[in-house]
């Protein structure tokens, strides 16, 4: 190919940029590692090469070659690498631990290289295949200078797509999965599909870039698609800043420029330029991970949208007075405040019937039955190991009961996973909070809002206006819930920078954002100062008055006596007594059991 040397260098860098930003979507946003970047880049390149080939290798041997035009080859490359991505990611996406994805992508890389270098009839083997040049509708790109503007546009397009996905609600969901997948499932969000989709999108963009690079170089051979390339791209993402698209662009340009610079150092032979480049970026990667693990441009520096400061400072610090009104209006539009039914008259929302569960020889829960009514606060108390948290695990589907069942609104929850349980209106507040540390308080709460149009990736592109309107509503709702718990002034702060008590309140706001009718609270006041505890107590009481059913596991008898309409006293997996606060606290046998005197 003719054209200037400088243009060729720039073109090689555009490929690196496109690969880096697409990997950032997976590695930075979704927090999943892929070692198959080079393999998908190569898969796209070979698909395009085979579909556009004229049926002859460089050495003249016959290969398969339907002779499609370039755009046909590009389209087939996108489809094949997208599907290939789904196939590789699907088994790993079900696992919470990311090691399976590293394993499968690494295996896929070796599989790809083996096939590319040995299936001579299809790929031309080690000699590769000649590829026709890039061309559209009769116009052909034959020099590096002509190609530059097209390749620059492609890299810019891929960067924009990744940036757009990253800032969409779908991108927020990916970041939530990265921070704590179990917490996201407990909010009623599916995690397998978004993870697989992120992987397939990354694979498709790498494949398309591969197809374009193959047509640009007019040649494919297996040595181009080495594991070193996969590491190089990962280094660009890690050093630029995972979760920051601009960072990947900058890092890819800088690292991509290393090789041509080294090639022109007079004391180096051109053979040693490539290993020197590898030594340098490998060392920078190591140093970067040790000294600056969040990269050159950390996430949130530029890419994250900031909520306008004025809007936040306008919110009064404590909104206790309006709390009841806002919560009540939203969740129970049909019920006036005064007409909330007395708990004992209304029919129960949740029925727990004969639940039993053993772990090995230990009977953790024995034949437990109880009801939760609308507007009622029921406290589960008992000594440590009585089975309280196990009951929550059984009710939310985190573990399966040996016997018995739970019904919600009259429907059985048998076989439902935590995500399905949360979707049907029963949400859980974790003892260990499970905040999403890397996200802002506002995004922590926004992610709890159910049924967001923008969490559908296709909608993000096909109906951007609708998604933008929905997102404005989601953010308004999230801010309202932060106001409810009284920490709206901290809406923009990263959750990990908040005090523990504030994190608990953020988690509370997130729970409220789900709109769940039944709330299971696991030690909501443990580990917070008395002031925050009082705030949480007031909040829980207000929620019950608005008609929600609340089941609370709590060690603090102060909290229990402040809140509970009814107490279930548990010991050794069974309910020993049930009654009002007075009835329980005046029974000497239970008090002895509880305090172990």
């Amino acid at each position, binding site marked *: 190919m003719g054209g200037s040397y400088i243009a060729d260098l720039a073109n090689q860098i555009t490929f690196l940029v496109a690969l880096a930003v697409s990997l950032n979507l997976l590695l930075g946003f979704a927090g999943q590692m892929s070692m198959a970047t080079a393999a998908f880049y190569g898969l796209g390149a070979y698909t395009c090469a085979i579909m556009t080939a004229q049926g002859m290798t460089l050495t003249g041997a016959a290969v398969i070659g339907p002779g499609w035009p370039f755009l046909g080859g590009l389209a087939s490359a996108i489809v094949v690498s997208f599907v290939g991505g789904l196939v590789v990611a699907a088994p790993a996406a079900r696992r919470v631990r990311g090691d399976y994805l590293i*394993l499968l992508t690494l295996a896929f890389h070796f599989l790809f290289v083996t096939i590319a270098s040995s299936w001579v009839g299809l790929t031309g083997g080690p000699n590769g295949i000649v590829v026709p040049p890039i061309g559209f509708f009769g116009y052909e790109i034959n020099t590096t200078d002509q190609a530059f503007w097209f390749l620059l546009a492609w890299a810019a397009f891929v960067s924009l797509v990744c940036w757009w996905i990253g800032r969409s609600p779908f991108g927020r969901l990916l970041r939530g999965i990265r921070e704590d997948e179990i917490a996201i499932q407990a909010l009623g969000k599916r995690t397998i599909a978004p993870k697989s989709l992120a992987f397939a999108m990354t694979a498709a963009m790498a494949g398309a870039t591969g197809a374009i690079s193959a047509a640009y170089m007019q040649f494919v051979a297996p040595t181009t698609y080495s594991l*070193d390339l996969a590491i190089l791209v*990962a*280094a660009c993402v890690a050093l630029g800043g995972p979760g920051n698209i601009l960072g990947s662009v900058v890092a890819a340009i800088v690292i991509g420029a290393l090789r041509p610079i080294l090639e022109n150092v007079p004391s180096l032979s051109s053979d040693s330029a490539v290993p020197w480049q590898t030594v340098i970026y490998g060392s920078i*990667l190591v140093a970067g991970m040790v000294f600056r693990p969040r990269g050159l441009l950390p996430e949130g520096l530029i890419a994250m949208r900031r909520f306008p400061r004025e809007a936040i400072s306008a919110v009064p610090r404590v909104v206790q007075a309006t709390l009841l009104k806002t919560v009540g209006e939203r969740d129970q539009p049909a019920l006036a405040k005064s007409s909330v039914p007395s708990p004992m008259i209304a029919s129960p929302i949740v029925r727990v019937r004969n639940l039993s569960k053993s772990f090995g020889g230990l009977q953790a829960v024995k034949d437990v039955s109880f009801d939760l009514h609308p507007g009622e606060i029921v406290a589960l108390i008992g000594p440590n190991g009585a089975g309280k948290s196990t009951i929550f695990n059984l009710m939310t589907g985190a573990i399966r009961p040996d016997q018995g069942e739970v019904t919600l609104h009259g429907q059985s929850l048998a076989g439902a996973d935590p995500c399905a349980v949360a979707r049907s209106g029963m949400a859980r507040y974790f003892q260990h909070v499970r905040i999403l540390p890397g996200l802002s308080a506002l995004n922590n709460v926004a992610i709890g809002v159910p049924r967001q149009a923008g969490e559908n990736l296709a909608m993000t592109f096909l109906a951007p206006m609708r998604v933008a309107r929905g997102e404005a509503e989601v953010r308004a709702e999230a801010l309202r819930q932060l106001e409810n718990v009284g920490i709206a002034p901290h809406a923009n702060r990263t959750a990990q920078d908040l005090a523990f008590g504030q994190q608990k309140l953020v988690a509370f706001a997130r729970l409220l954002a789900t709109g769940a009718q039944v709330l299971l609270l696991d030690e909501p006041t443990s580990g917070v100062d008395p002031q925050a505890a009082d705030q949480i107590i007031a909040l829980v009481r207000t929620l019950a008055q608005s008609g929600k059913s609340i089941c609370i596991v709590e060690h603090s008898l102060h909290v229990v006596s402040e809140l509970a309409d009814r107490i279930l006293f548990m010991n050794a997996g069974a309910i020993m007594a049930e009654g009002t606060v007075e009835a329980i606290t005046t029974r000497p046998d239970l008090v002895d059991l509880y305090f172990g005197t």
Partner: protein
Amino acid sequence: MNQLLQLIAFGIVQGATYALLAASFWLIYATTRTFHLAHSVTYAVAGYAAFVISVQLGLSLWLGAFASVISAAAVGCAIDAILYRPMRARGASVLSIFLASLGVAAAGAAALQLIFGPLVKQVPGFPNATLYLGSVTVTRLQVLTAFCAAATIFLVFLFITRTRTGNAITAVRTNPTMAMAVGIPVERISVLVFGIGSAMAGLAAFFETISFVAYPTMGLQPVMFGVIGVFLGGIGSIRGAALGGFVLGFLLVFSGLFLSQNLGVILVFAVLLVVVVFRPEGLLRSPSGA
């Protein structure tokens, strides 16, 4: 029948090598939760150490083997002590430790290429001979490789299950926080498993170098097979990892009977997918055993 026996013999030889690699990766991965891809650099350094001692310095092959094992252990310990330990102390995520490991893997192989050049290095001189055991033909080197691999795995197995230090390793593997709470020096255990695991890889690298050649990226494929072996056999125990390595070896050898060698790689990938989907704990489930 004769062909079957011959294939079984090759399967054992191949499987023992993969089992050794799987066990070495397992020891490091399971104990420290480090996806230690830089194991490939350790492996390549061991191969070149044999070349330096036995060819460049002209010393005996025994010293070369010794140099392989010692240099591998030193490299593994150094990577853990200089790189991973400060990162763990700073609370680095598993992903950033993996990325640092990738950096070492890339830079290390390239550095070896700069030092020794891109050409492969041979270490000749093993008094090899072909042995005829009934209808089975193997080389003396193959028998020695398989024997050393199996013996090493067995010794490490005994070490983990029968000694006090081995119990400490198991404790760190199953619950590092609790292990630290009862006074086990977790960081020292970590360096120890890096040392032992790397020495095991060094032994495998020595045999590969004297059987074939040493080259800068020689460690990638063996580590890859080791990783696959671990996940295939089971991440819960060294027996699982070793079993996975043997299964891998037999799969590759036996698929050669019906398929071309490259289709064997596809078969391995297919088996791996099936195992990850239907038995994510691996073929050998053992939640608490060693």
